[in-house]
């Protein structure tokens, strides 16, 4: 009896998880050597959930996204191991044609730079309609009608006029709306947004983030938000993964992560950014930002042991000798650090 309940629970868990990534490894084979851009990443994504992946340039967050879409340029890159299961189907095992029928249909992506990711010689309407013609067998005319509806949904004024226009005729914010419209045209289960607002002004950024949240509520799409901006994370994500040098170093719910980061790198990120103290009604402004010394290591030349050790105040011989195990330090809160206990609850502010 207890056993069947357990199995049922497992089955329900599985049906609530739309995406399961297990031990994903994406390597680049370059003249300067082997680069382990993504080195054994595992995570799952619930239906309708927003998961943020945070990290600095070169941490592997974008390559993770491209790997999920199977868009890593080969050569020099190759997905050498792991699995990416979308509703139980391993995308990494599919042939190219089957993958094409899923990409842009069940899983789609919004890129950072809307100007370079839209086709400049194709009207907005045709670009949005393209996936509908391919994946849903709509006629060109029907696809155009649907494109107009979607543009309306993403808040583009006069969509009937806009479908006839080219990307250069739209503003940056409007282009990003068009990109989102394109990504959502087939109502995908998973939307990957790679720095979707980093190229936009703050008032436009707020509009786009609000739009994504609204569409997510209405359509039930699960979102993977890739960003370096902790402000965006705090305001939009439910769960957060922090990456450093190709690996996951911490994972928790957004409230837990900001309240009690258990990896020194996460904590360093939080104390190194100006946190708008005055606006938040704090009287004592931070006089001096806390720096993380040094820089992100080159992936061709990672130190043995913990990759963050050379920049870490807590590092000792154990850190330099052996990579710390990725473990659940508190309920639903994982970190890869030998010294998490010293950090627990230690962040100020």
């Amino acid at each position: 009896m207890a056993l069947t309940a357990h199995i049922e629970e497992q089955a329900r868990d599985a049906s609530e998880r739309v995406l399961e990534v297990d031990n994903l490894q994406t390597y680049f084979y370059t003249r300067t050597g082997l680069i382990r851009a993504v080195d054994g990443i595992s995570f799952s994504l619930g239906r309708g959930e927003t998961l943020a992946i945070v990290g600095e340039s070169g941490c592997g967050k974008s390559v993770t996204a491209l790997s999920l879409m199977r868009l890593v340029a080969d050569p020099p890159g190759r997905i050498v191991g792991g699995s990416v299961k979308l509703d139980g189907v391993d995308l990494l095992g599919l042939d190219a044609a089957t993958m094409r029928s899923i990409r842009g249909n069940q899983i789609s992506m919004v890129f950072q730079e809307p100007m370079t990711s839209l086709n400049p010689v194709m009207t907005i309407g045709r670009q949005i309609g393209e996936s509908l013609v391919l994946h849903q067998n709509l006629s060109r005319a029907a696809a155009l009608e649907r494109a107009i509806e979607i543009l309306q949904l993403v808040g583009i004024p006069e969509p009937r006029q806009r479908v006839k226009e080219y990307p250069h005729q739209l503003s940056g914010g409007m282009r990003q709306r068009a990109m989102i419209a394109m990504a959502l045209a087939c109502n995908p289960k998973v939307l990957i947004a790679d720095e979707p607002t980093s190229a936009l002004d703050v008032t436009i950024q707020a509009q786009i983030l609000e739009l994504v949240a609204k569409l997510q509520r209405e359509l039930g799409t699960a979102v993977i938000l890739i960003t370096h901006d902790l402000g965006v994370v705090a305001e939009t994500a439910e769960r957060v993964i922090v990456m450093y040098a190709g690996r996951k170093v911490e994972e928790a719910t957004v409230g837990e992560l900001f309240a009690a980061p258990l990896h020194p790198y996460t904590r360093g990120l939080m104390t190194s950014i100006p946190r708008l103290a005055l606006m938040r009604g704090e009287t004592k402004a931070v006089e001096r930002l806390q720096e993380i010394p040094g820089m992100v290591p080159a992936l061709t030349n990672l130190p043995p042991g913990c990759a963050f050790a050379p920049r870490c105040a807590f590092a000792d011989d154990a850190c330099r000798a052996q990579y710390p195990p990725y473990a659940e330090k508190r309920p639903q809160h994982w970190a890869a650090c030998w010294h998490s206990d010293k950090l627990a609850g230690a962040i100020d502010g």
Partner: protein
Amino acid sequence: MAEPAVPVLQVDGLKKHFPVRKGLLRRTVGHVYAVDDVSFAIGVGETLGLVGESGCGKTTVGRAVLRLIEPTAGTILLEGRDITTLGKRALRPYRQQMQIIFQDPFSSLNPRMRAGDIVGEPMKLHGNVSRGDRRDHVAALFERVGLRRAQMDNYPHQFSGGQRQRIGVARALSLNPRLIIGDEPVSALDVSIQAQVINLLMDLQRELKLSYLFISHNLAVVEHISHRIAVMYLGRIVEHTDKATLFTRPLHPYTEALLAAVPVPDPKIRRTKRVVQGDVPSPLKPPPGCHFHTRCPYAEARCKTEPPLLREVAPGHHVACHLR
């Protein structure tokens, strides 16, 4: 910060209009009012933050102050001396007093020059330092900005982004300027590196009594580094005050909109946002009256026709809005 008798930089009524040319004969068909009647002053050891979104004219203000582009109208006083109309030669000594740090540490350094030569070049161009002294001076600058002396012979590609920005800072410091204009100097850097460069700039200010015009779109960075802040929208300053007032009691609806839009890195404060709608209008055809009226939730009839003047509504607090 006490206002000294003569500010390091005083800008009055600065305007920069770019002609828009069209057709075979390149006739002027209109103007972009990139900077439209901008005034401000910066005291010794003070940082003025200049914020606004893309196309608001903040970068043009910086370039015009340095006379890298020629202002259309207005005056620029550097330590009380009018430099607005000085010829190239007459301007040279004043150029030493004001330097710029650019946003992109990758494209603002000559890839074929050694880092030490890049930092030493302003001294070479402005003469009066012997070659040997120059090398010693460059070495001292390298150490001051947190680079190693041995790195002087390296080329820019051998440095990381943060280190390249340190080279940019060292180059700006090489002539002992009074004023440094930072045009988004940390925007291209990774989060963990940003703090290093911000701290460096603030340490240098304390030590050398430098004045900064800090141009940025990042409100959190501007809040941290500035003493006073001016907010620009489509070529005009809409609000200008000390940072505590700006962040706690903003008066202009556009400032309100900016503050409401900036994401706060604290999940405990998930604000119900009042997101301002619409795009920034084209600076080619700014709306008449108050430029912000097309997006302003409070706009009235006269906002659409009558441009508001920048008025001092409280001591040191300037706002350009009919309603405040």
